[in-house]
């Protein structure tokens, strides 16, 4: 199995890489675990593959109150890093719930956040897909849509975002660093992702010549004692989420001072559950409080024919995640 040929260019420095990535037909190669699958399936046909895997963007370190993770750090290195294990266990849990060891040893943080959807209509070029070919329609909407989004979808696309790590990072208010010819800019992770329109569904908001170089999490270690990543899937391991929940609480004197909730497998992007968060803050983590937050998590859901089950599944996943970290008060 293989796609069309391409030129291979090994980037020697960040500036070279950014310039090379700005050319039409160029695509970055980091770990390659998504790119090679897309290329083998004929879903991408780059003219030039710019290998950025050896650029010095692999460091993981604490900068004051901020954890910085280089975009080219391998997932296995991030999950095993002492700073992550000790102070950001939500990130570790989300990574260890992702893929297999063989994939995590190759895959990078940046590639994980920018990975393409696993929607089967996107992954098979025999089917209509606005994400792959804008304007061609969406096969999933009236097709096999058990896996599809219940929030944020459009007439044009109901694909979900596949990354577990992105859900954990969204809950922790992560920021990302983008490098381009114009310099460096910082933006919220949530701004990396866009909701689909009626005919298009861009994978991310980056433009040609933009390179994701690092992830930054400010003051997230306060959640270290109370955070969890709950992933519900069709088999116990090495499977994408049907529904997942990243949850983190900061409890002071028996009262929830801060709550973070984001869901995966339910939307085109990591789906932050802000109304549920607001309903938790200022209250003791009683069963009633958790249930009320979970009911808010499913408000406004628009399911399709075969994914109605995701609504109670999400509600129950929110309850269980909150019970895990909030206690059964």
């Amino acid at each position, binding site marked *: 199995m293989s796609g069309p*040929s391409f030129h291979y260019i090994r980037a020697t420095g960040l500036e070279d890489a950014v310039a090379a990535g700005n050319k039409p037909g160029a695509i970055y190669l980091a770990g390659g675990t998504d790119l090679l699958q897309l290329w083998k399936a004929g879903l991408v046909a780059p003219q030039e593959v710019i290998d950025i895997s050896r650029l010095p963007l692999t460091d993981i370190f604490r900068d004051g109150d901020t954890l910085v993770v280089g975009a080219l750090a391998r997932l*296995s290195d991030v999950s095993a890093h002492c700073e992550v294990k000790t102070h950001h266990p939500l990130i570790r849990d989300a990574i260890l719930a992702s893929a297999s060891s*063989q994939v995590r040893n190759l895959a990078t943080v940046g590639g994980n956040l920018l990975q393409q959807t696993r929607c089967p209509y996107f992954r098979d070029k025999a089917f209509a897909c606005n994400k792959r070919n804008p304007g061609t329609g969406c096969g999933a909407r009236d097709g096999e849509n058990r896996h599809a989004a219940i929030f944020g979808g459009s007439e044009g696309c109901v694909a979900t975002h596949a990354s577990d790590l992105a859900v954990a990072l969204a809950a922790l208010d992560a920021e990302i660093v983008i490098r381009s010819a114009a310099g460096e800019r910082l933006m919220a992770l949530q701004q990396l992702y866009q909701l689909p329109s009626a005919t298009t569904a861009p994978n991310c908001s980056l433009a040609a010549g933009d390179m994701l170089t690092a992830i930054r999490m400010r003051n997230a270690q306060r959640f270290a004692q109370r955070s969890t990543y709950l992933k519900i899937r069709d088999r116990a391991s090495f499977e994408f989420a049907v529904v997942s929940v990243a949850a983190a609480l900061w409890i002071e004197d028996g009262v929830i001072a801060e709550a973070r909730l984001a869901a995966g497998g339910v939307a085109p992007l990591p789906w932050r559950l802000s109304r549920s968060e607001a309903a938790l803050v200022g209250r003791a983590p009683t069963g009633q409080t958790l249930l009320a937050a979970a009911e808010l998590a499913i408000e406004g859901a628009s399911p399709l024919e075969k994914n109605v089950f995701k609504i109670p599944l999400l509600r129950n996943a929110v309850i269980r995640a909150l019970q895990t970290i909030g206690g059964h008060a």
Partner: protein
Amino acid sequence: MTNDPTRPRDANEPGANHRIALSLTINGARHDLEVAPTATLLDVIRDGLGLAGTKKGCDMGGCGACTVLVAGRRIAACLALAASFNDAVVTTIEGVGTPECLHPLQAAFIRHDALQCGYCTPGQILSGIALLSESPQSIEEIREGMSGNLCRCGAYANIVAAIAEVAGL
């Protein structure tokens, strides 16, 4: 070296006539190669160097039959673009044990009858060796740690038992 014998190449495709210099150390022996830009590490190991112990299963990173170690870490060689692995130190099943002196995990696989057709076994052994280096503490950790290797004969129970024995569990 050709890349994919199943697909005729169009000489007009970008990079179709290019070759990338690649130096690999495989099972202790150094190889200086010229590879197609599109070749995977699996293609190079199997078709280029004739080391057929590493298997091609799904070719999409899902089955683990192509598992090799790079610097001691297990990877799916089918998802590894070879050109990106210049100077890599690779271990394939041919570099593990000898008929006279099996690796302890190979011996345990035989004792526990941890295979039937054998196609997934090289990948299982290399993945298991990498897992053992991470010191699994429970049967559950072995099961989770081996989830990247499928066995369609269903020898999972015996595979886990073989790894558990070597792990001292």
